[in-house]
Every structure is written in C-alpha cells, then in structure tokens.
C-alpha cells in the first residue's frame, strides 16, 4: 500500500470513529431516559395485577375468558416487539431466533401461528409468515395510544376463538450490559403470575362486574405490552451503546495499526532515497 492510500484510510476511519463515538453517547443518554420510563410504567401494571388478583380469587359469577385456560390449542397469536432502527448489535437477531424457534415448535405440533409486530425490523423479518397487524415508527418515547391497534386485533381474535393463546416476545432489560430475549404468555393469564393474597373480598362493581372486568382485563394486557415495548427501547439503547463502544474501540486500534504501517513505510522510503543518493554520488566519483 502506498503512503497516500494509508493516509486516506486513516482519515476515513477517524471520521467513522467520530460518528460511532457520537452515537454511543446519544444512546447512553437515551438509555437513561428509557429506563426511567420503564420504571414509571411499573406502578400501573403492579396495581392492575393486584386488582386482577383480587378479582380472580373473588367469588364471581362472571369468569373472564382471559383467566380460563383452553384445552385444545389450534392457533396461537404472537406479538413480536423489535426496534425500528438497526445498529444495535445482535439484539433483534437474537430475539428473532427465539421467535422463529418457538414458531417452528408450534408448527411441528400442527398449531398455526398469527403474528402481530411492533417495530420495522420485526415487520421485515416476519413478512414471510404473514403479519396480521403492525405498528412501526413508535420512536424513542412510545405512546400507548399508538399501540392499541395490534393489541385490539389480537384480543379480538382471542375473543372470537380464532387464537387460543397470546404470547409476547421482547427483550428483557437485565442490566446495562445484558439483554436477553424473553417470551411471555399474556393470555390466558397464568394463575401463578397473579399475586398471592392472604385476604380477599368481593368488590362492588359499577356499572356491573362484566363491564368493569372487561375494561380492566383489556387494560391489563395493554399495560403488559406497553411495558414490553418500553423495555425493548431501553434494550435497544443499551445494546446500541455497547455496539457503538466496541466499534469506537475497534476503530481506535485500527488507526494505531495503520499509523504504524504508515510510519514504517515512510521510514523505508526515506532510507531508500538516502541509499539511492549515496549510490548515485559514488557512481559519479
């Protein structure tokens, strides 16, 4: 490689390094906000779970379909939550691997799968399976209002008996460095997910138990999915931060190596020139 080539390459790597460094810092600050949002959404889901637990344990004439397990599973619904943008390491790939695996397992048992997705990456990956509903471009600050569509589609399908189970696949935010794909069964609600209560009572319901429980169950599922989406944003940001950090580090070591090659090449050129001059002078004498 010529000197000039090396120099241009160093320059181009330097500008790449600047970009990855900037992306790393942006992701770090966005991650902080995303984890805050994740925390902020917890009291709601927690409180919901408490109320739902009370109801499930109460003596009610009306049992909501979401609390009843169906024996014969013919079709399952999947809600897959991914990012909209790339450059976040293996986050989506690992998630999709898990989802593909689970879908393949269902198909082996002769069970059909319906898919709803959040995020452009999942939409592209699962197109070939047929996607029944999607919501993309939710941004870094997802709002529940934008998520209602696919949830409604899936819950309606469950109510009509088109699907017998609803499962959500998203990334779990373990800590800043670790995110793991996780799949959770949303409907029917597993009784072990509900809280153990030492005491229970029967509520007064207004307007009546059915309407209140229907509204509550719908919101409970929505809150779980909202949490999933928010958690996935936190995962996206931390994963991007890590990916960009290692890209920056790699760029740095690459620059060092190239600099060494450049210096050696320059020294070789100088040495050669000197020996040529010396040889030329000797020839003239």
């Amino acid at each position, binding site marked *: 490689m010529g000197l000039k080539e090396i120099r241009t390459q160093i320059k181009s790597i330097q500008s790449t390094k600047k970009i990855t460094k900037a992306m790393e810092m942006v992701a770090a600050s966005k991650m902080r906000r995303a984890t805050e949002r994740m925390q902020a959404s917890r009291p709601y889901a927690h409180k919901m779970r408490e109320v739902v637990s009370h109801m499930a344990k109460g003596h009610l004439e009306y049992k909501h379909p979401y609390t009843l397990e169906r024996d014969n599973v013919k079709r399952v619904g999947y809600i897959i939550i991914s990012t909209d943008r790339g450059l976040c390491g293996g986050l989506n790939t690992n998630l999709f691997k898990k989802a593909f695996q689970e879908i393949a397992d269902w198909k082996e048992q002769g069970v059909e799968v319906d898919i*709803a997705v959040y995020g452009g990456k999942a939409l592209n990956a699962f197109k070939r399976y047929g996607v029944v509903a999607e919501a993309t471009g939710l941004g870094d600050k997802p709002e529940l209002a934008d998520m209602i569509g696919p949830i409604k589609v899936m819950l309606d399908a469950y109510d009509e008996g088109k699907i017998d189970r609803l499962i959500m696949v998203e990334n779990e935010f373990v800590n800043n460095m670790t995110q793991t794909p996780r799949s959770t069964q949303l409907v029917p609600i597993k009784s072990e997910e509900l809280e153990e209560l030492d005491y229970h009572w029967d509520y007064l319901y207004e307007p009546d138990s059915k309407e209140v429980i229907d509204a509550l169950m719908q919101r409970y599922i929505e809150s779980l999915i909202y949490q999933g989406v928010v958690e996935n944003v936190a995962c996206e940001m931390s994963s991007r931060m890590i990916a960009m950090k290692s890209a920056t580090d790699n760029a740095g070591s690459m620059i060092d190596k190239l600099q060494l090659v450049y210096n050696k090449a320059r020294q070789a050129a100088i040495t050669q020139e000197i020996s040529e001059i010396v040889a030329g002078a000797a020839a003239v004498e």
Partner: protein
Amino acid sequence: MAMTMHLNVVSAEEELFSGTVEEVFAPGTMGDLGIIPRHAQLVTTLKAGELRYVTNGHMASLFVSGGIMEVQPHVVTVLADTAIRADDLDEKAAEDAMERAEAALEGKDPEDLNYEALQAELEAAKAQIQMIHNIGKTLGRH
C-alpha cells in the same frame, strides 16, 4: 384531625399523583362519586372528566381521560387512561394496524426463509461495496 386515606393516580406511562387525601370526587361512568375514608370495596369505570381530591383541606384536581378506579377502605387507586378511549376509536386503530400490515406484505413476495441465500446475497453486496471503494480510491489518487 380528619380521617385520611391514600390516593394513587397512575397511568400506564407515569405516576400522576400519590399522597394522603381526605376526600375524592371521581367521574364514574354511572355518575359522579364522592369517596371518603372507610368506603366499601368498589371498582368502577371512569369517564373522561375532572378528578378532584381534598388534601390538607385544599381542593386540587386532575384531568383523567377515563380509566378504572379501585376503592379500598383506606386506599383509592385510579388507573387512568392515557388517551380518550371508545370502542369505535379502538376499532379504527385495529383496522389501521391490519391495513398497514397488509400493505407491508404486498410490498414483497413471501418467499421461503433461506438464511444461506440471504447470507450469500449479503456477501455479494459487501464485495460490491468494497469494489466501488477501491475504484473510488484509484480514481482519486491523481
């Protein structure tokens, strides 16, 4: 001292209020409700409106766009919606989500998932990019 109870107002996106109150007035779907401590356990749906509460003898209020209120003798929890909800609005959102999915699916043939083929394509694309880079460098050398 007046008897008090705890009021929590939370939405899926954030906590809106948490504190000790003497009285709560909520816009229930069946009519407005006034709650004072030691109320019987009650769950009700709320419609959009003003949620008022008395804390330290002062009246304060919050706007809720609907939701659910759970009352226990000494704890009142309002699970507020983040947006106005109605069946037809939800229906519209569901239809939109399905239409978008259909439109997205029509964009490309649902071909069989073939990792090897995709990988090969990716490698080919990478090689092309590399080649273009090299040509660019050669041209820019003079």
